[in-house]
Structure formats: C-alpha cells, structure tokens
C-alpha cells in the first residue's frame, strides 16, 4: 500500500509538471501559433539558473523562484523578437523546426559547460521534513510543488477566462487581425505571451530542481511526453490541459506500481488509443 501511494505521489508531481508545461505550450500555441520545442530546454534552463544562482551567487530558492523564470522569460522575449517573428507568415512547421534548433543549441551549451551528470539542489529549509499521513509519508516539499503548480495553473486559467487581459488574449487567438484593427498592439501581445509561456516553463524548472537532478538532458525527454499530453488533451482548453496533465501523471504512477517496464511508454499507448477513438483529443475541437 505504501508503495502504491508513493508511486501515485510521484505521478501527481510529474503530472503537475506536465500540466504546467502543457499549459505554457497551449497559451503560446493559441496566440503565437508556434509549437515551442524549446519548452523543455527552457524548463531545464530555469532549473539551471536556480542552481547556478545558488552555487555561485548565493541566491536562495525563494528569490530564484521569481528571478529564474524572469530570466527565462527575457530569453524568450529575445528569441521571439529576433527570430520567431520572421516566421509568422510561414507554415507553423518552421516555428517547430526553429525551436528544435534552439533546443540543440541550449542543451549543447549546458552540456559543454556542466557535463552530463546531475547536480542536486537542496530543498529550502522551510520546506524540509514531512509528515506521516498514516497510509504514507508525505514530504513537505512535494506537497508544496503540487499545491503551487495547481495554484499557478488556476491563476492562469482565471486570468485568461475572467479578466480583460485574458479577453484580449482569447480574441487574439480567434482573430488577431480584427483585434489589431481595434487598436490593440497584437505584435507586442504575442511577444509578451511567448515570454510568459516560457517563463512558466522556467518556473516549473525551479520547482523541479530540488526533486530531480539538475542536468542538461532533464528537459528533452520531458517535452516529448508533454507533446503526447497535448495531443491527448487537445490544445483547445486550459482546463483540459491541466486535467490531462495531472491525470496522465497519475496513470504513469499507477503503471509504475502495477507493471514498471511499461511506465515509460504508457502515455504514448494512451495517445494511440485516443487517436483511434477521439482523434481531436479529449478536450479538443477539430479545426
């Protein structure tokens, strides 16, 4: 029983990261129409910024939680302004290819500088320890990750669905030209949206740093699973990407308990089933 709940907790945490990352991907895809392959690499960059901050500048976890996503967001803004922008009038496959190239560059640079081995990031003092719930042991930090991820997801949902800024964003997703005709600076909005989306990835990276080893390859295998999550959930709804992300994380955890060898492939198997039964995705609309 302990083992089952332990795996489910791991699944829940993985699921929170899937949700955070697929949320960022969906927001970017909605307005900017780019599938950001570099999302995983920027998640890794976020984790590395936090680790570098701690190990060489003495910046702790709490400031890093703000500074690191900010730095990743700025990086995203630069990429959008200097490169991605030139591809908007082309097929959106080129955006995927560009960000793929960027992924190779980012990962290669970190690889060169920090090698292949993982670096551990200590859990902040206030969140050390844990509590025994009777049926399982719950480390404080893991509970914090799940809570905060869900909170951030909910806040994003609230901003997009319930505020004026979100209304602009949704209008831009539906019809950017018309929105521009109403006097909204759509190009600036696209830049900021891209920046915000990748900042979410950076934020997820900082959250992940104390749980996983901080290594240059931590993002790339994750992003492919997140793509599968996005295909399964459909990029249509924000709520959908959160539910699908957390749900698939749990399914993965359950598989790890029942039949460990299949844990790495179960998400892709589910993707196959979903494509057979509901090609548009669980929450998607066929365009």
């Amino acid at each position, binding site marked *: 029983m302990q083992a089952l709940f332990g795996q489910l907790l791991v699944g829940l945490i993985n699921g929170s990261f899937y949700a955070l990352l697929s949320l960022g991907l969906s927001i970017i895809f909605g307005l900017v129409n780019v*599938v950001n392959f570099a999302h995983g690499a920027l998640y890794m960059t976020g984790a590395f910024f936090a680790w570098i901050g701690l190990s060489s500048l003495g910046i702790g976890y709490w400031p890093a939680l703000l500074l690191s996503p900010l730095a990743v967001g700025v990086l995203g803004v630069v990429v959008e302004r200097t490169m991605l922008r030139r591809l908007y009038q082309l097929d959106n496959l080129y955006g995927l290819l560009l960000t793929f190239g960027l992924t190779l560059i980012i990962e290669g640079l970190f690889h060169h500088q920090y090698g292949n081995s993982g670096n551990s990031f200590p859990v902040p003092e206030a969140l050390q320890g844990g509590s025994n719930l009777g049926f399982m042991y719950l480390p404080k930090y893991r509970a914090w990750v799940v809570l905060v991820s869900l909170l951030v997801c909910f806040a994003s949902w609230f901003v997009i669905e319930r505020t004026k800024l979100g209304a602009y964003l949704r209008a831009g997703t539906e019809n950017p030209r018309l929105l521009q005709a109403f006097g909204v600076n759509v190009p600036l909005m696209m830049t900021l949206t891209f920046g915000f989306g990748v900042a979410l990835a950076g934020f997820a990276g900082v959250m992940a740093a104390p749980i996983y080893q901080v290594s240059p390859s931590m993002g790339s295998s994750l992003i*492919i699973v997140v793509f599968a999550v996005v295909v399964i959930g459909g990029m249509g709804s924000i709520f959908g990407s959160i539910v699908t992300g957390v749900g698939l994380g749990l399914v993965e955890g359950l598989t790890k308990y029942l039949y460990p060898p299949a844990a790495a492939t179960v998400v892709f198997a589910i*993707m196959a089933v979903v*494509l057979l039964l509901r090609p*548009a995705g669980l929450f998607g609309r066929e365009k």
Partner: protein
Amino acid sequence: MSGTGIHEPRTLIRMGVITPRRKAIFFAVMAGLGALAPFAVYPVFLMNVLCMALFASAFNLLLGYTGLLSFGHAAFLGSAGYVTGHALKVWGWPTEAGILLGTLVATVLGLVIGGLAIRRSGIYFAMITLGFAQMIYFVAVQLPFTGGEDGLQGIPRGKALGLFPLEGRYAMYYFVYVVFLLGFYVIYRTIHSPFGHVLRSIRENEPRALSLGYDVDRYKLVAFVISAGLAGLAGATKAVVLQFETLTDVHWHKSGEVVLMTLLGGMGTVMGPSAGALIVVAMENYLSGFGDWVTVIIGCVFVVGVLAFRRGFVGEAARLLKSFPI
C-alpha cells in the same frame, strides 16, 4: 508546406534549361561519380553518406512532396537496423534476407504509426510521430535483444548473393551503392508518377484535393508507408555496413538530423536530401573532435537554415538557373 519556395522543375523544363538529354547526362554523371568515389574518398564515410542520403530522400517523400513533417523517422531507421542485425548475428540469415526482414518490419511499423498519425494533420502530425518514435526508443532500451545501452555489436556482413564476401572495402561499397540506387529509383518513380502528382496536390491544397475526389488519407498513408519502408532499408543497410546498431539510431536527435539534411539540401527536390546528407555527415565527421560543440553547431545551422536558407542548396541552385538559364 505550401508556398515555401519549393522550386518545381516544371518551370525549368518549360524554359528549356532541363531537357530529357541534359537530365540523362546529369544522372549518368552522378551515377559515374558514385561508382568512382571510393577510389578517392574513404569508403566507410561514403557508405554512411549513401545510407543517410537514402534515409533523407525517403523522408523527403513525406516532407517535400506530401507536406507532412514526420518527427519520428528515426524509429524506422533504428528498428530496421536492430532487426537486421539480430537476424544476421543470431539467426545467421543471409545478408539480403536480413535486410529485407528489417525493411519489412519498418514498413509494418510505418503502417501502424502512419495509420494513427494521419488522423491528425499539421503540427499535431509532427508531435504524434515524435511521440511514437520515443515509444520505440523506450522499447529498444528495454528489449533484451537490442543490448540496451551497449547496443548490438559484431553484426556479420555475410556474403552478397551468397557468393561475394562483403569484407573488403570495395565489395561492401558497391553493395551499398546498388541498394541506394534501387531505393533512389523507387523514390524517383514515386515522385514522377500520377500518384506523386496527387501527393503534391495534397501538399499544395489538401481540401481541394479532397473535393476533387481523392481519398487524401489513403494517399498520405501509402506515402508514409513507402517512406518508412525505405527509411528502414537505409537503416538495415547501415547496420550491415557499420556492423553495430545503437540507441543513437532511434533517438529523437536522429529524427531531427534527417529534417536538417532535407532542409539544407532542399526539400521537395530530387537531389536535395542527398546533398544535405553529404553535408551533415561530413560536418559530423570533421567536427567530431569538438565534442559537445557539434550539437551546438548543428543547432546553429538549423536555426540559420530555417531563418534564411529555406530553399536549401539545390533549391537555391534551381533559382539561380531560373535567373541565368544556361
């Protein structure tokens, strides 16, 4: 990928730059160069280029001619390599039979993955193929016969037709060369058949092709299966040449590499992917001393290619020919 500056040779044919005679001479010269190449260049390097050229040409059938970006073609290259390697090494099959089995497995895999992936289009298609390829990667890591992280080592080359041992440097080269020419011919015929024209019409305007009564999904699936099968042929041959098969051939980096080859050489051109394969393999070969910088350099080439060089070398050459006809 409509309207991306793909240069159809039709204009050049109309302008009289490409005539049947010139075309025949061009292909004869290229084939002759290919036959003489091993006397000037290190044969193993050339064989690697030929395998990757076949791989990229097969990939181009999808990206360049059908407008489908598969981000998981490594799955076909690698799985065929593993199956062929296993058949030759453990079962002691003849070389040709082993290669055929690998190709067949890749073809069937293409039918399954393609059948699922064509249910979505555009960017989703790329993500789905990437996902399934990653699944194949994990399977390859776990299955016992692939050797996991160590890979499959010591694959015997065997004898061609049961007569000529493929151990010498030249015998193996000409074997690979024949395989390449066969595969290339299949691709060339596919592109220039009525079937190929339908593929192009799907690339240019899918709803219109559909409204004209073509069963678009069926065409896409057949193109995918042909492409997967030939990618498998390339992978199977590569395994025989190098005598080992490792996880790098099923890794997503490989799937990206074939996109880069096609993009650099010129997508939607007959010769482009081969030119791209030559450039990328040469780059990896000569830069291998730089360690991790190779990935960074490849990434930079990717970014520059996407931003400023979307026609590729062959596409640019066709454009120049159009401006200054010979």
